[in-house]
């Protein structure tokens, strides 16, 4: 081996290492810029005045985003109530009951449909769900209920495919053992398979929540964007994400900084959810 030859391999390794570091660099730059724009206002206006403030009037120095934090949590929870049971049922059917043909048809359809843009969900929410709620249940139709339904349907493919993977990774021997003891198929699923896949299923719920809490455009279209804490299922609301997207285009000065502060709060929520999800996945791997 001559020297030049070794040098070339080392240079390649060095360049590839730099490429690999780029992800960390991007993450770092994103955090630095969101925080450097968003944090100063927390000092200036006070953390409690922002996080627990009730009034959002950014041009008059009121930066309270408490109603939006509550609204974000409400619709995320609502989405989970709508989407999680259906998605789990779908995943269970696919992994435990579906025959080969059904699986070949259903699994790809779900993965293809996972790519439908979120704005399309929002649009169909406005055209079909909002008027139905307005006519039959009252209110303007733009509400927690409509938002939860749209987000719940949107996260169906995400939760289904991750829960499905969790169920498939339960060893066949567990099922065979249970069936051999005389348990029915449902008893096996309910008492053996679902508990064994529990952490993976929980992780799928948390990832679904992450998708719901981060969704923006679809929520703007169906939520009504009012600035109060919603007190009924039919009240309109504004989430953290929609607050940013609604005002970013024209905001300046402290108003724009307040939108970045909203982004900081959103990032904290998302990072906590991801940490919890990672914890569950790790717990599953080590088990």
């Amino acid at each position, binding site marked *: 081996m001559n020297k030049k030859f070794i040098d070339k391999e080392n240079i390649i390794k060095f360049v590839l290492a730099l490429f690999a570091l780029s992800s960390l660099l*991007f993450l770092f730059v994103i955090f630095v810029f969101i925080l450097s724009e968003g944090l100063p206002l927390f000092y200036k206006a006070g953390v409690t005045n922002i996080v627990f403030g009730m009034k959002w009037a950014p041009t008059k120095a009121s930066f309270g985003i408490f109603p939006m934090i509550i609204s974000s949590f409400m619709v995320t929870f609502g989405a989970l109530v709508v989407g999680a049971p259906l998605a789990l049922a779908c995943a269970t059917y696919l992994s435990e009951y579906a025959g080969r043909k059904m699986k070949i048809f259903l699994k790809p359809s779900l993965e293809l449909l996972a790519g439908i*843009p979120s704005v399309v969900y929002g649009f169909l929410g406005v055209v079909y769900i909002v008027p139905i709620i307005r006519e039959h249940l009252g209110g303007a139709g733009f509400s927690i209920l409509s938002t939860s339904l749209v987000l719940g349907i949107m996260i169906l493919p995400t939760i289904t495919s991750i829960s499905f993977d969790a169920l498939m990774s339960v060893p066949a021997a567990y099922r065979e053992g249970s069936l051999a003891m005389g348990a029915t198929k449902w008893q096996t699923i309910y008492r053996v398979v679902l508990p064994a896949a529990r952490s993976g299923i929980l992780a799928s719920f948390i990832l679904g929540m992450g998708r719901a809490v981060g969704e923006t455009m679809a929520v703007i279209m169906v939520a009504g964007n009012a600035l109060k804490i919603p007190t009924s299922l039919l009240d309109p609301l504004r989430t953290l994400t929609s607050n940013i997207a609604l005002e970013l285009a024209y905001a300046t000065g402290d108003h724009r900084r307040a939108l970045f502060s909203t*982004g900081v709060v959103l990032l904290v929520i998302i990072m906590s959810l991801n940490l919890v999800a990672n914890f569950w996945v790790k717990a599953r791997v080590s088990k």
Partner: protein
Amino acid sequence: MRINPRYIDKIMRGSLTAQALFTVGILVLIVVVIFIKGFSHVSMEFIFSNPEDMGRLGGIFPSIAGTIFLGLLSIAFATPLGVGTAIFLTEYTRESFFTRIIRFGVESLAGIPSIIYGLFGFIFFVIKLKMGWSLLSGTLTVAIMVLPTIIRTSEEAIKAVPNNLKMVSFSLGATKWETVTRVILPSAAPGVLTGIMLSIGRAVSETAAVIFTMGSSLRLPTSIMDSGRTMAVHFYILAREGISMEKAYATALVLVCSILVINIVAYYLMNRMIARYS
């Protein structure tokens, strides 16, 4: 009273089947509604002509072109970085603290919602780097956003290449880099392409991160410093501002069709990869 477990089993079987069909049914229904409502408004003229009167009349050609530019340019940035990262993680290093923090970075990027990418791209590319609302700002923002997808799928694809192929290459005197470029990457190509197709799909369907970086100009972008709008952004504006329901449905149809085609190609490539090595 004790109900016979066999009856419960039958009931649950029926109930789960019904729920699964209902779930897939809702999603299929979404596509069907878009097709039925949009089909009569889509024509060659709609696809190849310029919008008039804010999109009330005319077609969506500039936004189709904008979508293609954004999709292709963003993967042109993200693919070398992503595939390079995947090669480094799988072939050039062992699991260590260093790889763990890189993986942490990739996972974290994947978890960040698109509106945060929009905020970041807006303050960093549009304002601090003075790129303005432009194809370039949009491209760079989306490239960072799709990077985790490309890294993960490429890593999976490279890991799936059988070890004996590498051993043969080394035994013939090839260097590591020669093995990577002539043996590993060609074998892993379908998997890597799956990641690229999924990333294009993500760029095509994205709204929040694109609207604040690429802007929403209705004109055809002719340079990377021009603003433009993608189909998803155009559709969002048509629907949100109630400009035209017919045009909104027609745009949605073109948008959903493109996504389905992109995902079908991705799925086909993934199956080819699985069929090749399992």
